[in-house]
């Protein structure tokens, strides 16, 4: 590897890893948007995964692969609990319930001294490497592509377009919606664990309302009609403030503006094309 590339990667490793993690978060958002559900709990599940992984690594010395699995499992479990009662309702209730859930979790973290409370949890060893992050991203992306071009993709889209019609052709809508929520949570939990293990410090305020909205903006910008959309949206929105230094303070303003402009003028996002759903 040429020295300039080596230097570049070392200096910007944190930023590049961040791109990968944000892409996974984008896919976590895609999992629920593909069914037309607006779950805004990704930040909360990310936090759950982050804290679970941090505790397991630092206090119990659990091997990293197991830590990742545990982070995903914890988030998936939490998603099942909040998912079951809210799935029967219209999307607006789900959005509000997941925002509320995120706030409860954040308050919980702030008040739990075992995990550092409001001061955060530091000293997490840097076990998440670029190859792991991007390797997982690639696997997840391939999985989504494969699912979209199959009966699963058709079921997702049917549910998004017309739930009752989907039921009338034999799709178990409730099971699919719950599964989407659980997968979304597991991916967010994974992203949280990976993030914790390269930033080495996490704090409750990283997993609040603003983060939830930022993750949503990945999917809005890139579009949610194909799995690549949120990934592209994540790359663009994460890289832009870095690339345009003066924009750094305006990051949140920019995110908000993007969401507004795209929803009004480009409702399908940048990558608005539709993928074929035949296997």
């Amino acid at each position, binding site marked *: 590897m040429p020295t300039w590339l080596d230097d570049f990667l070392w200096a910007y490793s944190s930023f590049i890893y961040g791109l990968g993690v944000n892409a996974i978060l984008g896919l976590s958002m895609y999992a629920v948007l593909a069914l*037309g559900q*607006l779950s805004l709990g990704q930040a909360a599940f990310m936090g759950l995964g982050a804290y679970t992984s941090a505790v397991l690594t630092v206090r119990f010395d659990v091997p990293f692969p197991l830590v990742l699995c545990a982070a995903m499992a914890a988030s998936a479990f939490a998603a099942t609990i909040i998912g079951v*009662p809210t799935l*029967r309702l219209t999307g607006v209730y789900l959005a509000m319930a997941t925002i509320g859930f995120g706030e*409860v979790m954040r*308050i919980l973290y702030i008040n739990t001294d075992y995990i550092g409370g409001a001061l955060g949890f530091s000293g997490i060893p840097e076990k998440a490497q670029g190859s792991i992050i991007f390797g997982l991203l690639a696997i997840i992306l391939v999985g989504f592509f494969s699912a979209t071009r199959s009966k699963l993709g058709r079921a997702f889209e049917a549910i998004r377009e017309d739930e009752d019609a989907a039921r009338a052709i034999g799709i178990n809508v409730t099971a699919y919606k719950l599964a989407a929520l659980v997968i979304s949570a597991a991916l967010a939990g994974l992203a949280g664990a990976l993030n914790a293990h390269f930033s080495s410090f996490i704090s409750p305020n990283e997993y609040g309302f603003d983060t939830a909205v930022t993750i949503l903006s990945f999917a809005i910008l890139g579009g949610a009609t194909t799995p690549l959309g949120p990934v592209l949206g994540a790359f663009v929105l994460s890289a832009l403030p870095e690339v345009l230094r003066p924009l750094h303070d305006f990051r*949140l303003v920019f995110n*908000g*503006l993007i969401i507004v402009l795209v929803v*009004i003028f480009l409702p399908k996002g940048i990558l608005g094309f539709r993928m074929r759903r035949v296997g």
Partner: protein
Amino acid sequence: MLAQQLFNAFVLGSVYALFSMGFTLTFGVLRVINLLYGFYVAAGAFLSLVAVRDIGVPLWAAGILGAFGTGIIAVACDSALLTPLRRAKAPELSSLIVTLGGVLLLNSLMLLIFGAEVRRFPVTLLSQSPISFGVLQIGEVQLVIIVIVAVLVTALFLFIERTRLGIAIRAVAENPDAAALMGVNVDAVFIGVSFLAATLIAIAGILIGLNFNAVHPYMGEPLMLRGFAVVIIGGLGDIRGALVAGLALGFIEVMTAGYLSSNFKDAAAFAAMVATLWLRPSGLFGRSVTRRA
């Protein structure tokens, strides 16, 4: 002591109720969860603060200025963001998303313009020493809050029930197309509701700013999040529900802080919301969800 706790709960709940009534009114008519209200809270408080501190008008006038100013801002923002979506018949969730982006944008702008430091209303405005009333200690601020909320709530109910615009609002809430066929100017109703709801929310912001003696760009967010809980518990679109649930939430929070732990009082709202979603999703006064096999 219990009576004092109850009184404080009543005061807090009143502000929650005021905010939530505006919020739920918008949902009932416009069918939108309008997250911009988190911003309008701060806008109202800041406008009044500027009026009092920099222009020197008395508090009551500043309150009216703040409310009306916010109302106008709200009409502008709501129209800019929501009208294009309504024209394009976009799905309900698009409106939620666009106001999500909008509030992020506006809050951040406000942060950049005004900075994060906490401002306060001038100390001389309202007397800080509480009045004794039997066993209760009542602050002048608290009295102001209760009176204003009571007046506004009564006015709102009368307005909705008795005036022509109020009836038009109820008609549009029930069925916009039918209302249009009956000659109701639906666009005017939307503007009217935007304005009205925003003035209520702005006043809630001013009252909160006075009660906690703090004005800062993100002050609307806790109110917004509690607003979610209140409108879910009370039933989306129902202003009686918002009133009852708002007061109830004030009660729940103060009791949690007093008897359980003040750390978790913030979580009480969401716990109550989740419980409602689990047990009776339509809320106290909401329409019920269709039965499924």
